[in-house]
C-alpha cells in the first residue's frame, strides 16, 4: 500500500525518462544549487565573525582584549568600558541556573524514562516540552509581576537566616541575581531534561535487566547501571543548558536590575552581557565607542557560547559515539522518527 502511495502520480512520462539534453543539465545544476546553499552557511558564519570583530575594533583597540573582557568598570558617562561586571553577572546567573535546574532536569528524565507508568510517559514529556514553548519575554513578564513580589519576603528570610554562608546576607533587592538565575533554571530545564532522556533511553536493556536480576532495587539499578552509562551524555546536556543560559536575554534583562556594578551577594542587582546589549544599544547609536563596546560584549558572549557548546558537543559525542545521539535533535524538540512511524518506512 505504501509503495503505491509513494509512486509519482501520472504516467511514467512524468518521470522524464526520455533523457533530453536539458534533463542531463538539470542534474548537475541541482547538485550545485544545493552545494552553494550549504557553502552559504559557512560563508555566513565566517562573515558574521569577521564583521563583528571589525565593528568591535574601536573598543578592543582602546582597552585591549584583556582590558575589555576583565576590566571591572563599565561607565557609559565616562566612556570607560570594561566588561567584567557583565561577565560576572552572566557567570553568577548561569551558575544559579545550573545548580537549581540541572538536578531537577535529571530527576525528571530519570522519572519519565525509568519509573513512571508507561501511560504517563507521553503526557509528562509533553508537559515538560511545554515549558520550552513559553517565550522568553513571557517568562520575564511573569518574573517581574509574580516572582519578584512573591519571593521578596522568603529571600529576605533566607538571607537573614543563612547569612553565615558566603554571598548571602544583607538587604534583598527587588530584581536580583537569584531571580534571574531561577528563571534561567526554568528555561534550561526542558532542554537538559530532553537530552538527558534521550541519553538515558540508550542504556541497553540488558544492563538494566542484569542489575535487576542480580537483586538490585530500581534505585540501585539507576545509580549503578543507568547513571554511570549515561554520565557523559548528561554532562553534555548540562553544558548545552549552560550555553542556553549564558545567551538568554530578555527574561534576564527584565529581572536582573541592570546595575553595572558587581553585586556583593546573591540577592543584589546586577547585569549580564546579553542584558547590557539589549538595554543600551539605543543610547549607543550616537556614541561610536559605546556601540563598539556593546558589539565587543556581543563578541565575548558569542565566543563564550561557542566554547561551551563546543565542549558540550565534544562530551556528548565522545560518550555516545557508538550510540548515535545528536544533541541538536533533542534540543530542537524534533520528535525523532515520529513523523514516519507507522508509515512502513522506518525499518
Amino acid at each position: 500500500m505504501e509503495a503505491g502511495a509513494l509512486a509519482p502520480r501520472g504516467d511514467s512520462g512524468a518521470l522524464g525518462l526520455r533523457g533530453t539534453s536539458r534533463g542531463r543539465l538539470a542534474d548537475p545544476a541541482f547538485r550545485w544549487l544545493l552545494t552553494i546553499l550549504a557553502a552559504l552557511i559557512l560563508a555566513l558564519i565566517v562573515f558574521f565573525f569577521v564583521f563583528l570583530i571589525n565593528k568591535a575594533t574601536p573598543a578592543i583597540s582602546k582597552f585591549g582584549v584583556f582590558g575589555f573582557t576583565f576590566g571591572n568598570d563599565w561607565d557609559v558617562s565616562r566612556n570607560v568600558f570594561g566588561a567584567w561586571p557583565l561577565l560576572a553577572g552572566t557567570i553568577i546567573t548561569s551558575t544559579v541556573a545550573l545548580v537549581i535546574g540541572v538536578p531537577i532536569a535529571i530527576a525528571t528524565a530519570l522519572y519519565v524514562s525509568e519509573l513512571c507508568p508507561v501511560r504517563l510517559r507521553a503526557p509528562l514529556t509533553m508537559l515538560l516540552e511545554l515549558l520550552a514553548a513559553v517565550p522568553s519575554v513571557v517568562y520575564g513578564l511573569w518574573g517581574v509581576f509574580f516572582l519578584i513580589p512573591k519571593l521578596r519576603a522568603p529571600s529576605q528570610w533566607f538571607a537573614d537566616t543563612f547569612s553565615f554562608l558566603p554571598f548571602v546576607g544583607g538587604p534583598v533587592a527587588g530584581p536580583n541575581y537569584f531571580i534571574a538565575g531561577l528563571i534561567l533554571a526554568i528555561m534550561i530545564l526542558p532542554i537538559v531534561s530532553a537530552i538527558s532522556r534521550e541519553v538515558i533511553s540508550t542504556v541497553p536493556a540488558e544492563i538494566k535487566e542484569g542489575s535487576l536480576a542480580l537483586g538490585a532495587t530500581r534505585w540501585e539499578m539507576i545509580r549503578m547501571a543507568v547513571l554511570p552509562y549515561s554520565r557523559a551524555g548528561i554532562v553534555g546536556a548540562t553544558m548545552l543548558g549552560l550555553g542556553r543560559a549564558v545567551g538568554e536575554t530578555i527574561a534576564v534583562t527584565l529581572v536582573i536590575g541592570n546595575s553595572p556594578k558587581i553585586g556583593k551577594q546573591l540577592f543584589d542587582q546586577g547585569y549580564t552581557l546579553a542584558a547590557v546589549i539589549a538595554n543600551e544599544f539605543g543610547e549607543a547609536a550616537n556614541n561610536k565607542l559605546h556601540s563598539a563596546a556593546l558589539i565587543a560584549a556581543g563578541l565575548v558572549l558569542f565566543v563564550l557560547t561557542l566554547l561551551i557548546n563546543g565542549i558540550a558537543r565534544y562530551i556528548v559525542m565522545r560518550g555516545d559515539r557508538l550510540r548515535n545521539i545528536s544533541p541538536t535533535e533533542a534540543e530542537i524538540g524534533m520528535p525523532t522518527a515520529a513523523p514516519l512511524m507507522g508509515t512502513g518506512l522506518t525499518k
Partner: protein
Amino acid sequence: MSTTPSSVALEPTGGRRRQTDRVMRVVLLVLTLVALVPLVLVIVKLLGSGLKALSWKFFTTDPTGSFLGDPGGIKSAILGTLEIIAVASAFSIPIGIGVALYLVEYGKAGRFASVVRYFVDVLTGVPSIVFGLFVYAALVVSKVGGSGFAGWKGALAVALLMLPVVTRSAEVVLLLVPDDLREAALALGAPRWKVVWRVVLPTAKPGLITGSLLAIARGAGETAPLLFTAAIVQGTTYNLNARMNSLPAQIFADVGQAQDRLVTRAWGAALTLVTMILILNIVARLYSRRSRLS
C-alpha cells in the same frame, strides 16, 4: 517483574535498601512535580491577568501610545508578528531544507558535509541577541534599503535563528527515507533531482512540515533580535521596509512602562502570543500523527 525476587539472600542490610529505594522513588517523583510547578504558575497567571485584557477591540485597534486614557489594542503587533514570521519562513525554510538535502543526498559523511553540519550546530548555539546585533550592525546602522529599522531586517534576524532548526530537523527526517525508494527510482532511470523532487521530498513531507512548524514556533517568540532590527512602533504597517511592531517587542515595551493599563495589555499580548505558539506546536504534532494514519 518489578517485584524483587532477591529479598531472601541478597539483602543483608535488611529493609534498608528497600527503604532507600522507596525514598528515592518519591524524591524523583517530587522533583518531577516541582519541574511542572512553574508551568502551572505561568499558565494560571497568564490566564488570570491576560483574559481580562481580551476583547474584540483589543485585537482590532492599534496601540495609541497615549499616556492617559485608552492605551489601545495590539492589532499592529499581531499583524507585525505574522508578517515577520512569514518573511522569515520564506527565507529559512527553503534554504534550511536545501542544506539538509545537500547533507543527506550529496554530502553524506564527506569532509565538506561534516564541516557544514558542524557549523549548523554552531548556529544552533548562537544566542538570539547576537543575531540581532549582527543584523543591527550590518543592515540597520548603515540604513541599507533607505531606512534604519525595518520589518524585513527583523525577519532576517529571525530567519538566521530558524535556519539551523529547520536544517537539523529536516536532516533527521530525510535520513529516514529508505534508500530502497531512491534506488528504485534511479533504477527506473529518473535523474537525481527528480528522485529528490518526486520521491524523497513527498515521502518526507509530513516530517518536514512538523520540523518547519516547530522552527516557526521558536522564531515567533523571540524578542531580542527584533528590538534591534524591526524596533517598536504603534501603527500597523504592511511596508516591510518600515519599522514594524511585533507581539514580543510590544510586551517588552509595555513591561518597561510600569503603568497598570499597559501591563494589562502586556498580559493580553502575552496570552495571545503563547496561544499562537501552542497552536503551532499542536498542529505540528497533529500533522506528524495524521501522516501516520494515511
